[in-house]
């Protein structure tokens, strides 16, 4: 029999419903793996051992009572950006190192109500600002494929945990690539849904016109299954859309005959590692063999997405993070001289270098005399980028390209210059700027490291993304490969 930790959510769900395994057994198995690998990977900030075992016992009772539900009893990890009631929620920051959330995020509440068992809170870049997990106050996460390398970020803990089989699935968030980029670097499946699809209530804000909650799983099928539980209107989030949630699992197997795929010309540029490019082309060939047609598409304004993002995201971050004042919650400095000193030192000591860099960039671009030249200009270029995508989707169904320029880089390799780090998100930022859904699926290995293929669709086309990704995963086994030593 396959080891429990090797099973996908769909397989675990079946095993639970046929009573092949109990939820308590599952929780124990995954908690044991978390403990075994915590020191080596640092994927978790908080492990919820007692809570998980109690939740699992309740799930077993629900199953014994004959309750139906695909998620009942399935273990899951939450990125530590999602508030969990009565439990520490740190957002990877010293600022919130002792913050105990008084309420559950809607995502947490929905998964909990559906019977999922929370095993812990995953490590992340501080306030989700980073592409390598090196900005976490709780130390970097290591990539299970090579512990000398980064797992990507900001959802690096979630990606590493799922890749290392410490949890079958984890929640994550994506502002500029923070789900897809670590999923690609860790060889797992990462979905960033359409802006507004998943409630952000209780999800600590970074850049509000870009942030969206999503999932890191081992397969597209698992992502479809869990998104159905997480998504949907929430009156407590003013950006939540009032659209029904389709049955994402119902359309997974639709044939791809006639699917029109656009190859993103701008993504196959000189910055893309040639070996990674070849893996993407191999992946496209698998889809073509299933009847999809390929056509090169150009989005001429897309190369401006990084500079656009590094105005919009810091501007919104500087505004969102103004709430951390050392008064109502969070870190407070010792012996403040006066109120200004309390604000300045609490924030100066409570935030790490990257967060401060972004707050200052945002403060600068929003300051008197610069607003038009930077913020307004960036929002105009953003409209151009968005229009490029819209035009492309008149001709094609999905856009496909790489998720990242290279496989995982070494810890410390890009910390000296923030701009080098920022360019890591060059292929993922576009979908955030335009509010589009996108999924990254493993499509091969380069020098023993995973490569991700990114599929981007029009607004609310998650069903189509799952369908394409699932058909691809039926024909390939890259998503089933475990990092050496973690099988």
């Amino acid at each position, binding site marked *: 029999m396959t080891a429990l930790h090797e099973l996908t959510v769909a397989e675990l769900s079946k095993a639970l419903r046929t009573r092949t395994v109990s939820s308590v057994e599952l929780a124990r198995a995954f908690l044991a793996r978390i403990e075994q690998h915590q020191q080596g990977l640092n994927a978790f900030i908080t492990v919820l051992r007692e809570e998980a075992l109690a939740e699992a016992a309740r799930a077993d009772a629900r199953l014994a009572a004959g309750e139906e539900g695909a998620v009942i009893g399935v273990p899951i990890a939450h990125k530590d950006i999602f508030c969990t009631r009565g439990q520490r929620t740190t957002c990877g920051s010293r600022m919130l190192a*002792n*913050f*105990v959330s*008084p309420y559950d995020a809607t995502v947490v509440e929905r998964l909990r109500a559906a019977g999922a068992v929370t095993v812990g809170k995953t490590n992340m870049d501080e306030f989700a600002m980073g592409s390598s997990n090196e900005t976490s106050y709780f130390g970097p996460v290591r990539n299970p494929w090579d512990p000398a390398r980064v797992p990507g970020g900001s959802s690096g803990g979630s990606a590493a945990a799922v890749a290392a089989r410490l949890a079958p699935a984890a929640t994550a968030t994506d502002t500029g690539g923070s789900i897809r980029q670590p999923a690609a670097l860790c060889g797992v499946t990462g979905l960033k849904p*359409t*802006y*507004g699809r998943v409630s952000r209530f209780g999800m600590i804000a970074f850049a509000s*016109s*870009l942030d969206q909650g999503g999932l890191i799983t081992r397969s597209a099928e698992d992502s479809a299954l869990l998104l159905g539980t997480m998504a949907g209107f929430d009156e407590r989030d*003013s950006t939540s*859309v009032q659209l029904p949630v389709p049955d994402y699992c119902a359309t997974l197997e639709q044939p791809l005959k006639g699917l029109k795929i656009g190859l993103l010309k701008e993504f196959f540029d000189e910055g893309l590692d040639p070996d990674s490019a070849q893996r993407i082309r191999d992946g496209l060939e698998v889809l073509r063999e299933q009847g999809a047609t390929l056509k090169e598409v150009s989005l001429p*304004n897309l190369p*401006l997405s*990084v*500079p656009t993002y*590094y*105005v919009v995201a810091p501007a919104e971050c*500087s505004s969102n993070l103004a709430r951390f004042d*050392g*008064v*109502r*919650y*969070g*870190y*407070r400095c010792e012996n403040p001289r*006066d*109120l*200004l*000193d309390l*604000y*300045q*030192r609490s*924030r*100066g000591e409570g*935030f790490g270098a990257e967060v*401060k*860099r972004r*707050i*200052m*960039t945002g*403060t*600068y671009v929003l*300051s008197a005399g610069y607003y038009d030249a*930077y913020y307004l*200009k960036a*929002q*105009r*270029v*953003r*409209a*151009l980028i*968005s229009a490029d995508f*819209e035009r492309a989707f008149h001709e094609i169904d999905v856009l496909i390209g790489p998720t990242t320029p290279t496989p995982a880089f070494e810890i410390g390799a890009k910390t000296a*210059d*923030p*701009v080098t780090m920022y360019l890591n998100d060059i292929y993922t930022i576009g979908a*955030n*700027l335009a*509010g589009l859904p996108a999924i990254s699926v493993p499509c091969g290995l380069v020098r023993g490291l995973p490569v991700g293929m990114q599929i981007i669709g029009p*607004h609310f086309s998650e069903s189509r993304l799952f369908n394409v990704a699932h058909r691809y995963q039926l024909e390939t086994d890259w998503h089933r490969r475990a990092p050496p030593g973690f099988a």
Partner: protein
Amino acid sequence: MSLNRQDIDKIALLARLALTESEVPAYVENLSRIMALVGELERADTSQVEPMAHPLPGQRQRLRADEVTAGDQRELFQRNAPQVEAGLYLVPRVLE
């Protein structure tokens, strides 16, 4: 776009961030590099383009009725406060 030490001091004050002396040179350098990257935006002709206000076309921020919907949970919320007394948040004296 190059920033100098005075710019960084002014930005840090606006952002209410105390920087240590050793942090300042790195921020001068980093922010200058970031603003150089941002300078690429000038390449785009946006004279005929409206700034984007929402990532979803035609969507606007939903408003709710201005009604009290949440109960008083002061005690619960103040458990996370660094310093409270008699239900009040304590800060250094503001008025002499």
